[in-house]
């Protein structure tokens, strides 16, 4: 942990307070200028954009994944196994490869456009790739399983205790009230875990906006990457990274309050 996690991060934190040399590189001289720049420069907009992007992706994942996880959790054993298998299959392929596959599907000469053209539904190919929408789609697609799995685990825990739902029905609640007042609150740990698992990688994503957005979409991940690789301004990139890490840690601290509550175990004691 210390060698592979602690030292690199501490080093990054360290250089974020250093000055950049005239031709790149690091000058070991203390400064707060990097952080100053972050908050006053146009780059701050990148961070805000990234936060909005991540919130929307997380929300869409949650809304789509919840019914899906619910269907898995309430399926008979055999179908449950098949559905879970289908959720896990994408993990066997690199997300980079999957993003290329998605690019092929929606590109101007891609699968969807050719089918629509062949059936004369459209006459001009739709311009779907290299847009902000495509970036959303790519990020959503690559993150969805990370939302489904914790939600499924949480819902399965509730389904394993049908007495909570029965008690709710017994007390006069119909199916929808039972869902909103009993099932949903009991799955808050799953919602918190899934949201965190989607939000954090989305905040740091860089190759999906690069590939799907075609350079038109710049998120904080791309910004950091370009500071390190293209602009050769390591201290500035490090400062931006540090900010992202701080945001992430704050979020983890906040949501852990909702995650560690082992509602079900305690309730059945």
């Amino acid at each position, binding site marked *: 942990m210390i060698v592979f996690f602690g030292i690199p991060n501490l080093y990054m934190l360290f250089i974020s307070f250093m000055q950049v040399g005239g031709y790149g590189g690091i000058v070991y001289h203390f400064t707060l200028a990097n952080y100053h720049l972050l908050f006053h420069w146009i780059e701050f907009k990148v961070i805000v954009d990234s936060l909005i992007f991540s919130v929307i992706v997380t929300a869409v994942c949650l809304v789509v994944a919840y019914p899906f996880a619910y269907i898995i959790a309430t399926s008979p054993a055999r179908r449950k196994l098949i559905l879970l298998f289908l959720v896990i299959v994408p993990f066997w392929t690199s997300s980079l490869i999957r993003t290329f596959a998605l690019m092929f599907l929606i590109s101007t000469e891609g699968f969807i456009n050719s089918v629509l053209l062949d059936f004369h539904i459209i006459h001009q190919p739709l311009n779907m790739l290299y847009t902000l929408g495509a970036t959303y789609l790519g990020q959503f697609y690559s993150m969805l399983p990370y939302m489904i799995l914790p939600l499924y685990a949480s819902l399965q825990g509730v389904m394993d*205790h049908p*007495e*909570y739902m*029965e*008690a*709710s*029905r*017994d*007390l*006069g*609640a*119909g199916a929808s*009230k039972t869902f909103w*007042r*009993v099932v949903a*609150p*009991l799955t*808050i740990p799953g919602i918190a875990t899934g949201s965190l698992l989607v939000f954090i990688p989305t905040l740091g994503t860089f190759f999906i906006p690069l590939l799907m957005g075609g350079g038109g979409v710049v998120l904080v991940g791309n910004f950091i990457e370009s500071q390190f690789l293209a602009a050769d301004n390591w201290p500035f990139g490090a400062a931006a990274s540090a900010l992202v890490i701080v945001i992430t840690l704050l979020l983890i601290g906040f949501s852990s309050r909702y995650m560690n509550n082992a*509602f*079900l175990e*305690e*309730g*059945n*004691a």
Partner: protein
Amino acid sequence: MSGSVMIGLHGVTKNFAHTQVIREFSLDIYQGEFVTLLGASGSGKTTILRMIAGFEEVSGGRVTIDGVDMTGLPANLRPVNSVFQNYALFPHLNVYDNVAFGLRIKKFPEKLIKERVRESLNMVGLDAFATRRIRQLSGGQQQRVAIARAIINRPKVLLLDEPLSALDLKLRKEMQLELKRLHRELGITFVYVTHDQEEAMSMSDRIGVLAHGELLQYASPEELYANPASAAVASFVGETNLFDGTVVDIVKGYSVIQTRHFLTKAPVAEGHAVGSAVVLSVRPEAIRLGDSVGAPICRGIIMERIFAGSLIRIWVRVDEALTIQCLIHGTRNDEFPIGEEVDVIWEPNHSLAFPKEIKSLSEDSQLLGSNESAGQ
């Protein structure tokens, strides 16, 4: 029993997959009664309760509550509330919110809810616990919250599924009294499910004894004990000694019964004929030992004795195949020492002979203590 029928079960059947777990089950429960469904696990008693609550749909027959046919009506629309075996309190809500749940669903004003929650918690003695989280409560306290959460809705019927099974003996006895008190104060119909015959006997107005999805007998505790309808009921309700035998003669209202170990008499009952197989039941407390009045039925050696205050429980061994359990009044601990040979005597009028059922006991005699036969 006066009053109107609150719950009617009319020829109810239930199939799970291809097995019939409840067969042609009929039973009436009157308004205000405390009725217990008593049976071993797997006897179908919980399934009956779940069909009344609406968690299971009947496969055949009808369930009526207060004269209304419940067929097709989901649980949330039935005028009953349940206390679950494992309480099923909502772990994400505190005591107050758990108890208030039913009234909030019915959109009562918060002010009224507050009053009613206080009243309900007061009835179960938990006024001071409203803000506690569920996991901070002991088992007994959780049980009380579960009861408060059910009765706050003022149901026509309260259904209780083995509500005390998770509590230790002392707490169980306390809660039995508490439930009796609540039943008196609320005046609503209680339907109680248990495998514990002692619990059933001490709490109920009437008991329905179930086995294999069928109602064996439905009667008051006194009636069940004094006049069990079958050997199965006799062995399930209270303790008894059972002996397999054959009717060899019928004389002056008594059947003369030959068992492998002795010849005795029992009052003639339905199904008795010369040559028919019967099961003779003799309660341990009906047996006397070692006095010379009357002819001894058999002789045996005292194998074990347990002194329990005013009663001594004694096991008399007749031979390898037969040991008879007796409950003797006695205050002296030096009576009936182990190893002593004694006469075993009972009045024919204190024994019952049931026609032998197909699924009956294969051995000459079997001792069925209440809890062993409960299949726990």
